[in-house]
């Protein structure tokens, strides 16, 4: 045996010490990377692009959450506060009141409040909204498009593979940065009234 080989043998204490040091270094490195990732906003969440959405109804049924984590969001800055609201009333309605039989929403999740003649405010009650997009379609067809579907991040489980994204026929779903989690259309989108 070569004489220098004696120097390369590592004692048990040294081996354990080195192992502990490497483990601590790896652990600290991991924590640092995690912190850096969080600070850099590299985390992503699911969101749907209203400009691609066709209100096919699948957001209501495809989500693993029940009711769906997709909700109607109202961009008030775009709203016309109309009396005859295409997102609130059934198309054939002749009497503009809050009677259930005149409402378009299948769960009556939109609240209509008189402001002043002839303006009415429409508020989404998220607990009732199932994200079917029926009101969005009506608002888009007859109004300014102020009602829009969005994944509500406080409700979303942020699954690795979003079941709605998989079923979306218009490819409207994508991962977006968690620090900018909403994709709203229109001139009111800079200040969405959602948290």
């Amino acid at each position, binding site marked *: 045996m070569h004489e220098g080989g004696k120097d390369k043998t590592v004692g048990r204490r040294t081996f354990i010490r080195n192992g502990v040091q490497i483990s601590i270094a790896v652990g600290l490195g991991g924590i640092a990377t995690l912190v850096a990732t969080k600070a850099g906003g590299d985390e992503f969440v699911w969101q749907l692009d209203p400009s691609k959405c066709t209100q*096919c109804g699948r957001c*209501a049924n495809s989500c693993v959450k029940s009711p769906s984590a997709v909700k109607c969001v109202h961009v008030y800055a775009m709203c016309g506060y109309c009396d005859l609201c295409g997102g609130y009333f059934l198309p054939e309605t002749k009497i503009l009141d809050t009677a259930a039989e005149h409402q378009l929403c299948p769960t009556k999740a939109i609240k209509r409040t008189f402001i002043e003649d002839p303006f009415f405010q429409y508020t989404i009650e998220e607990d009732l909204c199932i994200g079917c997009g029926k009101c969005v379609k009506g608002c888009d067809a007859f109004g300014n498009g102020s009602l829009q579907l969005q994944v509500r991040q406080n409700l979303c489980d942020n699954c690795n593979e979003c079941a709605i994204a998989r079923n979306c026929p218009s490819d409207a779903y994508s991962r977006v940065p968690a620090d900018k989690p909403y994709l709203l259309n229109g001139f009111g989108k800079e200040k969405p009234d959602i948290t």
Partner: protein
Amino acid sequence: MKQRMILIASLVLLLAVIGYMVYDLFFSESDRSTNPYDYGLAELRKSDSALIHYNEVQQFSIGLSEVYGIATDPAGRIYVTGADIVEVFSPEGELLSTFPFQDTAYCITISPDGTILLGMEDHLEFMSPQGEIINRWKPVSEKSILTSVATDGTDVFIADAGEKIVYRFNMKGELINRIGEKDSLAGIPGFVIPSPYFDLGLGRDGELWVVNSGRHLFEAFRPDGTLISTWGQPSMEVEGFCGCCNPSHFVILSDGSFVTSEKGIERVKVYLPSGEFSCLVAAPNQFDEGTRGMDLALDPNGRIILLDPWRSQVRIFVHKEDESDGNR
């Protein structure tokens, strides 16, 4: 023997159930393609063909991707404008001239002397019949969105959807008065304009007709701002005006009837001078779903000239009785 039969029957039943589940999970597309929450716009777009009293006799493409306004002159020439350009067509649809300018015009009219008035977002520009910019007024207001302009050669009336008001200027650009401000004592409800569709036009007797689109009303004013009359009703039915803000555009026929265009349920209709529904010019199925901004004009032969921004076309309609008389 009996047990074997039961076993076989159970196996067959089990296989049938599994087969149905596999089909339902992987091969059945019918349920997926059906939207249980469908709005049903298709039903609303249906109309009675007996109500259509006009035929589409001509259409031609325009070379602009962004178009907003259409007008005609006494010779029947058709002017189309949008971003950066005015295109002038003969009554037969032949391109005669193109007049470039800066900015985007959202409305256009031709004065009796042939001057082209262009409504930009916040100001008016005047173009000679040869296409030179000869005057440019100062912006009306910071919030202005000018959507319609009309002139009788003496006064210029401008609809401002941003300020929700109509202005009356003289030809020097001096403001004479504002029209349509809310005034309970005068019985003026004020304009409700949820979106930038706010049209106006001059009637046979010099009265000013303005669409109060949020209320689905036509309102007539004297030039001094006195309210004369109103008509209109909100309805998805053919007799009324649908959606949040309709009609989006109109033009007045020589007999005082109104031709209106709507968005939401795309349709063009004629109303008698009294406001009573008369007939359809074009039904929803004659337009692409989602079409909006269908500006209207009238040529000296009474043909209805419609701007279809979705198809980037000018479309011309003639009454069926006139068509049989050879008026094309």
